[in-house]
């Protein structure tokens, strides 16, 4: 079965027209929004029931971004890994680059929430920071 919620890219052909369909996540209503694009420019947004939907749709089709959360190894702590996140959004297509950048990193306990693990991870402009306090091992 195809997942109808998937953001789909229907190429209009020679004119460079794109129609993208997405589910708004700004509230539980979950409007099915259609965004008409031409040469990378948003031409129209339909299907949303409020301005927040339009804002979401435009940002999602022009520069989709996400917070990435993951884990890095830590030694000398009460457990072997510590949780981390990007301190701000990173471009969606860079998510796995952020994850790859975290592989092989090993911190030493103690660490505290907000400690910077990597500055400007994968050239995204966001720092990776610690999200759990890990005291020195038991």
């Amino acid at each position: 079965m195809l997942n109808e919620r998937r953001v789909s890219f229907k190429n209009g052909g020679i004119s460079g027209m794109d129609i993208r369909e997405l589910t708004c996540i700004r509230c539980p209503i979950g409007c099915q929004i259609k965004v008409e694009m031409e040469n990378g420019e948003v031409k129209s947004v339909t299907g949303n029931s409020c301005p927040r939907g339009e804002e979401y749709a435009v940002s999602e089709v022009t520069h989709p971004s996400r917070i990435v959360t993951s884990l890095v190894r830590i030694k000398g702590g009460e457990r072997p890994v510590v949780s981390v996140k990007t301190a701000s959004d990173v471009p969606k297509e860079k998510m796995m680059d952020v994850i790859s950048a975290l592989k092989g990193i090993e911190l030493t306990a103690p660490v505290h929430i907000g400690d910077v693990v990597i500055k400007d991870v994968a050239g995204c402009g966001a720092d990776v920071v610690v999200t759990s306090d890990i005291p020195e091992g038991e």
Partner: protein
Amino acid sequence: MRDVTIIGAGVTGSAVAMELAAYDLDILVIEKESDVCEGTSKANSGIVHSGYDAEPGSLKARFNVEGNRLIHELSRALDFPFRENGSLVLSLEEEGRAKVEELYERGLANGVPGLKILERDELTKLEPNVSENAVCALFAPTGGIVCPFNMNIAFAENAADNGADFVFDTQVKKITKKTSEDGSIFFHIETSGEDFDTKVLVNAAGVYADVIHNMVSDEKIHITPRKGQYILMDKNAGSLVSHTLFQLPTKMGKGILVTPTVHGNLMAGPTADDADPEDTSTTAEGLDTVLTRGALSVKALPRMPITSFAGLRAHEDGGDFIVGEAKDVPGFFDAAGIESPGLTAAPAIGKYLGTLIAEKLSARKKADHISERKGIPSIALADDEEREKLIKQDPSYAKVVCRCELVTEGEIKNAITRTLGARTVDGVKRRTRAGMGRCQAGFCLARTIPILAEQLGVSFEDVTKSGGGSYYIDGNIKDLI
């Protein structure tokens, strides 16, 4: 050269080993799985039958009645959970009365004590939730419920405490009869691991007993594995009935029993379908049958399953147990076709074969035989005074690992470090009940694996559910990134 080698560490093999370990004999038990109680012995009704069911004069009848008596005694000496809750065979229609009477007569012939036919009014006093359709019932007060795991484990531990050796993860591939220089017969056993020589060989291989038997005997036997599916319900449903409720077989087929378990859950099953000897899968139809037919015995069967499982009974074509020395192979003893009431019969079969083999080998009873065994202490069952004593001895008895069944780290360490200790998560589960409760190890699995790894001195990756390839942990995060 071993005096006796037993193939199979199920309840029957373990019972034989326990009996023989009372003698001055060199005993080996070979098991293809990673622990005792891994085949039929772990997946059955856990019922200690009183003995009215079997044909008078059959081996089933003989060993059932004696086994019932022995379990009453052994549960105390070997400290495994058993409760004489009594069983009821319900007739759900008036036409069944004759069959109930027939069972009563058969029970008398088999020497079953205390049998009584109850009419509906007496029956409802005993079991208020019994089905409106129950017209009468055979009451067998000596019927009971047992923890099938811990009975098997207790037998094996006692055998090991008395010097019997166990090898696991070892499958018998070939058996050859040989003659030694002094002219005596012995058996050479080739396995997936080491080879062994033995004077006497006992076949307690469960659903594979025909394969083992036919390796050495020309009088072939044939076993059909018969699958039985069960559903185990939450302890909140455990008080629905206090006795084991059997149904008379009807045109709908053999009945489904509904019983409390010795640990306070409610259980329903089994189905009966011929199966492949490795097929322990449950099916949607099977589980549905258990629920719909089981519901016939009671007013309302609660739908509170916590797990379902399937076991295989070793049904031999002749319909009875095959217990004794093979006619054409001196020194080769069978305990084959051990289907219901096999769990009940096991200690009696053990006693019978043990005595026979000891005589054959002119063995003598050991002076220093250990006849008692202490089970793993249970914080859940202990009173506060006992709890405090245990915690004082070892504070890890206050560290709860399994919250559903209230099992502590102390109990789990005990299970791993004791005689024939647990080496797998299932082994810990069957010994301590950690992971046996309503969350089915959702919480405690993550706590049990580190304890097993530490106690066994292995990595997390090497901890398995039940040996073989049943690993849980598959490397570290980002290994594949």
